[in-house]
């Protein structure tokens, strides 16, 4: 219990007749990279929304650093130290890349100049092309935006970062580079992570442990090699597109 930064306990979230998240419990240990996988519609994004306050779970609790954060509004949860990226991107189209990241930094300071310099450093840290930092959100590519989304999130100085399919759509060599960046964020900035991803090679290589969801439920939890050989997991992915 003491080394768990996040504890999810029996969380339930329904949409009409669908139980999107069905009695999910797991721990995230301080400092680790936890993979969260599952076929389409498994409930991964909904679970992220329950943790970050976008939805209030109908049942169950979420504890962050020992504190009950269930039902807190998203901005309070961000202030406590949980940041996220979005599967369906949410760019600030009429702000520049640098301004968007500055917004993130401003959570912990009111000094705009300082925040802007820090935003510049963060963009450099994740290797965002320098010549594009003054481009407007509407003028950059989807891939660029995924990096901005990541920069924006780490700019809030979180202790826990939830990544919802950051690697989707990337080419293999870009994916390797991203994995490197995430490891660097994890070790140098000491940010714990939950990584949702469909590309097995990517999550398996990145995560120390993996939680598998299927139709709202947790069906397995363990080290990547255990997960890869787990019959329940293989069955869940059978009939769906193996990746």
């Amino acid at each position, binding site marked *: 219990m003491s080394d768990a930064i996040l504890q999810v306990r029996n969380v339930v979230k329904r949409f009409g007749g669908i139980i999107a998240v069905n009695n999910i419990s797991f721990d995230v240990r301080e400092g680790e990279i936890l993979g969260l996988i599952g076929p389409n519609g498994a409930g991964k994004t909904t679970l992220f929304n329950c943790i*970050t306050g*976008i939805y209030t779970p109908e049942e169950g609790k979420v504890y962050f650093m020992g504190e009950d954060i269930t039902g807190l*509004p*998203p*901005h309070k949860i*961000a*202030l406590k130290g949980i*940041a*996220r990226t*979005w599967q369906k991107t*949410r*760019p*600030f*189209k*009429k*702000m*520049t890349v*640098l*301004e*968007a990241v*500055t*917004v*993130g930094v*401003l*959570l912990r300071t*009111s000094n*705009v*100049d300082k*925040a802007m310099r820090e935003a510049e450093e963060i963009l450099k840290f994740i290797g965002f092309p320098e010549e594009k930092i*003054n481009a407007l*959100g509407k003028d950059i590519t989807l891939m660029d935006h995924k990096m901005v989304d990541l920069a*924006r*999130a780490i*700019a*809030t100085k979180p202790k826990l970062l939830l990544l919802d399919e950051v690697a989707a759509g990337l080419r293999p060599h870009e994916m390797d580079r991203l994995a490197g960046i995430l490891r660097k964020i994890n070790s140098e900035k000491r940010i714990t992570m939950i990584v949702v991803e469909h590309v097995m090679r990517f999550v398996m290589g990145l995560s120390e442990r993996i939680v598998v969801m299927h139709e709202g439920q947790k069906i397995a939890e363990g080290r990547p090699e255990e997960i890869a050989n787990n019959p329940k997991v293989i069955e869940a992915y059978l009939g769906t597109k193996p990746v």
Partner: protein
Amino acid sequence: MVSAEFKKHFTILAILTIALALVPFILGFNQYYILLAATSLIFAVFVVAWNIIGGYAGQLDLAPIAYVGIGGIVAAQLLKYYGITPWIGMFIGAGASMLLAAAIGYPTFRFGIKEVWYALLTASLVVILNNIAHLPQFLGSLDHYLPAKTGWYYLIFTDYQNLYYVILAVLIATIVINLKISNSKTGYYLRAIREDELAAEALGIDVRKYKLKALMTYAGIMGFTGYLYIVLQGTYSYHTFDSPTSLTIAIMGIIGGLGSVAGAFTSAIFLKTVEEYLRSTIGATIPGLYLLIYGILLIVVGIFKPEGIAALFNWAKKKIGFDRRGG
């Protein structure tokens, strides 16, 4: 880097102030033209203030005249019945408008009313206030006049140039407030809210609080300026809560380009001056006609240049190599 930015703004503002201060001289102290110039100037105040809620925060507020009216009528009544100078009354009027803004904004933002629903709600606020003011317990059907006195105590003058300069001072203050907000944490947060509320919230922004802050700041400036508007109009009544005027202010803000102070200012001065000029030359007094012209302009801007007049400034800046962070 920032002091350079500040210096640039300061220089532009100083030049603008001097240029506007010279206008009464250029007009040869022709009272009629100065009245028209003062009217354009006060609309510039309204549109620049509207930019805070409409431009930065991205809330399509159609109730500017509600806040102008409340603030102005409060200050006018205080002068008329209690002899309180508008120097004090205008602040009380501003406070009254801010209270109204809080009463509207708190539940509205609490329940996440936005976009077209927010626009409709605020548009109906003007109609409701018009009806309430029409009641015999309030202003009734009559036109109300300010006391037939003149002097700085009343801010009522025999000549229009004094009033013109008072409005100019308010305009400069409003522009400064805008620029301050724009370059502050609040400005960044409001723009983030305008771009994507959910993403903004996930970055730790208390969306409700910041929207309310923007609404109350804007309402405060409107309420403060209300008295000067009534002095320009000569009278006040339930007609002060005029829906077409309210719409016009928002439309000028959109044509100017959301979030651009220079665009808001230029749009208001240009459109209001043309409107007043046409009114005086053609003598068309159909208020709906101007609204139609504005509507068409709005469509043109919407189709060709969604960034409005501000796009012209950005283009010019790039041409001169004056771009903010280009270097």
